[in-house]
């Protein structure tokens, strides 16, 4: 009997830990007492890429709680239900189905690796519901003929052609023809495609570029892979991989005495990462203004983190917060009552004024159209300045726009 009870207790504990679920609060404010907007989220808050998506999801939840506390959207709170996909495509699909059917979700936001996008979309299609994928954008979202239900909503990544476009521009400009560039991808489809595309762009500009693919999950020692970059004689390094792979490779290069410059992509665009290395050799593109710039949205985010509590540092919450701004804009545009078809229409013509609160430079807006579900992205390079002991921008904001599936137009905008 004791053994039976023991195993029963153990089984319950296992079940509790394996099926982690987070349910957002549907607005405690007296002002937000109307019927809620039901929004679902399938998020990789545990599993191999959790270090990226757990804080991202937390930032998104924080924004929704902050929104509900301010009265929601015209008195209607947002009921956000978050479910943990563990980055598993099959699980992501099953959870999306549950969110649509059991929670009557208007839309499902997918926060996880790009491999999870299509399984979620498959569940949304029969219902005509929009899927907001907050990860690297895939070709099905790019102009001129995006999937009508699929929108790319993360600011920490672009499309296959655009994600590393600013890094390509910067390295080509600074390094000049003949410069040697070492690029790393993680062994997942989107990362490989992004880095392969950037490698070809660099080569087309006359630079020598070599791409290496890091196993997923990364092995204990990336020294042998770093060695390839050193043997290649790389002066520059960049990559399109999640934080754990990129940082491990840069550190492995450093350990072997590499003296080149690493140009990081937005998934490592956090203040704490620049503060950690304090190195002129390490510059990073941010997809939102860093906390160091103290923009109005930072103050709101910090206040919300204080009010509602957060297990993550504020810089890690910025991209999730920006996602919340986008979802709020879409719901406002949808109005009340909002159904799945109306929400999809709202997303098709969405305009988000990210410049208003300093997320992007003043005047910069993200716009989706029926033929473009990626929109414009703004990226800016930052580094740690040893002289002033703070994070400083390197050059202007870059505006990146898809003109085709993988064709992009990059332009410098705003102040220097």
């Amino acid at each position, binding site marked *: 009997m004791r053994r039976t009870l023991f195993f029963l207790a153990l089984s319950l504990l296992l079940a509790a830990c394996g099926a982690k679920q987070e349910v957002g609060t549907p607005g405690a404010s007296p002002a937000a007492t109307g019927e809620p907007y039901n929004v679902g989220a399938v998020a990789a808050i545990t599993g191999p890429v959790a270090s990226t998506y757990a804080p991202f999801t937390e930032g998104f939840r924080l924004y929704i709680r902050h929104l509900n506390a301010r009265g929601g959207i015209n008195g209607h709170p947002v009921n956000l239900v978050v479910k943990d996909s563990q980055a598993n495509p099959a699980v992501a699909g099953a959870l999306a189905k549950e969110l649509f059917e059991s929670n009557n979700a208007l839309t499902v936001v997918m926060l996880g690796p790009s491999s999870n996008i299509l399984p979620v979309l498959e569940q949304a299609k029969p219902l005509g519901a929009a899927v907001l994928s907050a990860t690297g954008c895939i070709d099905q979202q790019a102009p001129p003929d995006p999937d009508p239900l699929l929108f790319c909503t993360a600011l920490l990544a672009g499309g296959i052609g655009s994600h590393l476009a600013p890094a390509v521009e910067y390295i080509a400009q600074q390094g000049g023809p003949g410069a040697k560039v070492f690029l790393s991808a993680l062994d997942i489809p989107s990362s490989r495609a992004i880095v392969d595309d950037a490698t070809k762009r660099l080569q087309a500009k006359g630079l020598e570029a070599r791409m290496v693919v890091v196993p997923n999950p990364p092995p204990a020692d990336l020294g*042998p892979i770093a060695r390839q970059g050193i043997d290649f004689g790389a002066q520059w390094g960049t990559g399109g991989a999640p934080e754990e792979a990129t940082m491990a490779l840069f550190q492995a290069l450093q350990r072997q005495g590499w003296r080149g410059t690493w140009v990081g992509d937005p998934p490592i665009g956090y203040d704490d990462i620049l503060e950690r290395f304090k190195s002129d050799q390490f510059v990073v593109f941010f997809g939102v203004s860093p906390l160091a710039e103290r923009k109005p949205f930072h103050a709101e985010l910090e206040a919300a983190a204080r009010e509602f509590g957060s297990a993550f540092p504020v810089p890690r919450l910025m991209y999730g917060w920006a996602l919340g701004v986008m979802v709020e804009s879409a719901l406002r545009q949808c109005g009340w009552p909002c159904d799945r078809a109306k929400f999809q229409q709202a997303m098709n013509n969405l305009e988000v004024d990210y410049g208003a609160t300093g997320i992007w430079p003043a005047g910069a807006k993200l716009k989706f159209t029926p033929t473009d579900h990626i929109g414009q992205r703004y990226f800016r390079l930052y580094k740690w300045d040893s002289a002033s002991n703070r994070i400083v921008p390197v050059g202007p904001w870059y505006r990146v726009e898809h003109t085709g599936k993988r064709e992009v137009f990059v332009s410098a905008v705003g102040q220097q």
Partner: protein
Amino acid sequence: MDAQLVAQVVVLAAFYSLIGTGYVLVYRASRVLNLANGELLMLCAYFFFSLTVLGQDLLPLVVLLALVLVAMLAGVIYLATVRPMTGYPVFSIVLMTVGLAIVLRGLAELVWTAQARYPLDVLGITNQTLQLPGGAVITVVEAGQVVAAVLFIGGVVAFLRVARIGMQMRAAAEHPVLASQRGVNIHMAFALSWALAAIGAGIAGLAFAANVRLEPNIAEQGLRALAVPLAGGLTSIFGAVIASLLVATSENLAVQYADPLLAGVVPYLVILAFIVLRPWGLLGEKEELERV
């Protein structure tokens, strides 16, 4: 092989041997493949991270406390979960360790979150590099890991051969009934094996967290190191050391001369090769096969 490659092989072999020795110790004692060994590695690193509040000056104490905590945890895990399953099929106990791994990883995510951490940064310590003869470069942490692996494995072998409790552990492992009849507290001996194994994995975890990063998924390194006991023989510590060198060499050569993607595959290829060609491993015992 050039000097850098040799250095990389030795560093990686030290890492694998620390974990692999733990698998062997637990298997020898309780005939269980502890598939939660990687989670103990990860937890020790988190204990270290949490204890960094004590400051840089107390670093040796911080390391020691982290290792003591993980050893105690492993002993408690044995007494609370494995001991009650005495008499059950080994397969059930191995499955239980899989469940245990899920629980431990889930708890780590709840307590410390999934965010990547860098314990040395918290302590304000820079992981300096060391120039070795031949132009090879490794870090101080990597050098420390190699020294720790030598001391740990040497210490364990000496302990099992010389110390009274070590001999009791061997006796309990070889014939539990006879040992029990001679007054050996076999469950305490087995719990001690789990604790020693956790210390080995813990040292590897501390080195990984200090050298690379700390997040719940570093537990997967434990699974990669499973190639070591399977190739070396589940009952042989020396086999584990030789297999560590074999796996580390294969992994480095594959990356350098074939494809970096093979780094993720090589440990499992080694497992497959041994299962097909020499299932009892390099220095393992044939009769143990049935139990696995």
